[in-house]
């Protein structure tokens, strides 16, 4: 299958007064058509920065994409001008943000906000864009869409706002949808509804999805492949079934053990000792996970491991793993 998006050696750094914060520090991955890639990690590991880098939404200053390539169907997004990137945003690649109530504009009705992108990218006039918006609201499961199109965000619940955001994101039939913690602000039953909706969209439009989340349960339910991020790096990337059954990196194993699984009887959770590192002054000469790793040995202190293949399409970034 053809690679839809390929990210090569992406580095996004933030130049702060206290030092250089290496939010994303050299990551490589790709996503093929119709595939769902999960990016998991704890807060501050750089997963949202990856998403924003792809759409070139990094606030600058202080942030800057220092190096790397982001190839969308073979063309480098990072080399494009501002006008060209606007053609891509919302049209070929669109994004769903975590907190729908803050990312929707409070002074425009839902229908207007959805229509804006349709007018901008597809040359619709306002009236027909409004009609299309109503159709989209119906597609995302909003009851009585022609009435709800007139609603303002504060009149809608969190789940409904997220549906509006999804309607905006799919308005131009993008080939890639980036969902940044799309259900974190929602209750479980609503979360399940939204994930189901995203599944339907994926199946009906063959959209590729990058799902950014901290929840390994959602990844297990929703993704084909998964990348585990830590301190600005991908530590492991594999097929979902393979990763959960056969995790190679100690961090992945720790993460999997620290989530309670209601299907398994466990007396005690295992936790990862210590805390996530401060990304402004990470030592360059050792593994980023070293201070929290139970399995560290001498090579870990004298160099950074590379992401290498440990199995069929399974890559891990650890000196301990052997091919």
């Amino acid at each position: 299958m053809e690679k839809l998006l390929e990210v090569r050696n992406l580095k996004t750094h933030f130049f702060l007064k206290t030092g250089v914060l290496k939010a994303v520090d050299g990551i490589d991955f790709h996503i093929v058509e119709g595939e769902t890639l999960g990016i998991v990690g704890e807060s501050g590991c750089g997963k949202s920065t990856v998403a924003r880098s792809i759409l070139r939404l990094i606030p600058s200053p202080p942030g800057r994409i220092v190096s790397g390539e982001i190839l969308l169907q073979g063309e480098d997004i990072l080399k494009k001008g501002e006008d060209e990137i606007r053609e891509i945003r919302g049209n070929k690649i669109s994004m769903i943000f975590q907190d729908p109530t803050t990312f929707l504009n409070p002074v425009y009705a839902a229908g207007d906000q959805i229509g804006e992108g349709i007018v901008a990218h597809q040359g619709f006039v306002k009236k027909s864009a409004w009609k299309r918006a109503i159709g989209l609201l119906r597609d995302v499961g909003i009851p009585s869409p022609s009435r709800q199109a007139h609603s303002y965000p504060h009149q809608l619940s969190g789940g409904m706002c997220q549906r509006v955001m999804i309607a905006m994101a799919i308005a131009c039939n993008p080939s890639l949808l980036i969902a940044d913690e799309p259900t974190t602000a929602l209750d479980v039953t609503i979360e399940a509804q939204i994930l189901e909706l995203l599944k339907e969209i994926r199946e009906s439009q063959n959209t590729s999805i990058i799902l950014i989340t901290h929840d390994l349960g959602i990844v297990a339910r929703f993704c084909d492949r998964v990348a585990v991020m830590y301190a600005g790096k991908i530590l492991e990337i594999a097929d979902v079934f393979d990763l959960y059954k056969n995790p190679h990196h100690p961090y992945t194993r720790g993460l999997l053990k620290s989530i309670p699984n209601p299907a398994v009887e466990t007396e005690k959770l295992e936790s990862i000792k210590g805390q996530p590192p401060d990304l402004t002054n990470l030592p360059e000469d050792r593994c980023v996970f070293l201070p929290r790793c139970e399995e560290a040995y001498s090579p870990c202190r004298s160099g950074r491991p590379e992401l290498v293949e440990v199995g069929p399409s399974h890559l891990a970034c650890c000196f301990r793993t052997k091919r």
Partner: protein
Amino acid sequence: MRSGNQVLIQAKNLRKYYELRRWTSIRSSKEVVKAVDGLDFCIRKRETLGLVGESGCGKSTTGRLLLGLEEPTSGEVLFEGENICGHSREVWRQLRREMQIVFQDPFSSLNPRMRVGSTIEWTLKNFDLYSKEEREERVGRLLEMVGLEAQFANRYPHEFSGGQRQRIGIARALSLQPKFIVADEPVSSLDVSIQAQILNLLRDLQKELGLTCLFITHDLRIVKQMSDRIAVMYLGKIVELARSGSLYQNPKHPYTQKLIEAVPFPDPEIESKRKRVLLSGEVPSPLNPPSGCRFRTRCERAEPICSEEDPVLRDSGDDHSVACHFV
């Protein structure tokens, strides 16, 4: 796990209504939010009762009612057999030595201008306990008990991470050696790897000190790990109350069933095989809850009786109570 079945704290037909005033251009109208609407449950000594539900179901209000941080509209809270509602401030002050709370947000629940040692010491000072030296020594021991170092007492909250602050919050709650602790979403603002650390700490301390806990959370994966029994709330009422094992293996109320079905398990093998019939719609507004059974608007099994009669929480044997007409 439990010594006898003595009840430590009990809620009897507990209700809390909030009045809202809505202003239109010419007049105001009064509306009532029934945040907690008739709860009956007990927590036995040395037991952890998990309280789960979606946002706005009244679980935090329940915790605050038990601690007397809110005055109930009606009903009683019995602590060691004695009704504690409507006591004077001074009586409550003394009572709070026995009952403490761990808050959700470790960033806003510690005073940023006080060293954490003084924050913990305040609770002891408040009751004129011990001499200054003894207090300091106790603070050190408390910090060690929650996995920190004694000399951290001299630091300010901003010098700590979220997980460490939550440990400090726990140390503060334990400083008066309470019998009863309410943990209100103690880990929901923490990362997964830190979450597990704090949950283990809470569980260990609870066993070691023989505490009785009310563990409030929205996360069904955590609550099973932490609780002996679990109460499921929906729109201000308990719909099911059972031992945590049997609640998961054999959920009886349709809402509990849907809730457990909705939880993503961290295992793709299980997830790919699970069949899910999703709960449709959203939680109705507590301003205007449905008549009869509150869940009927989203329930597949709903029949006319559900809109007419409010099902009561009935024990269906084996310590398992359900509020549904069809169980």
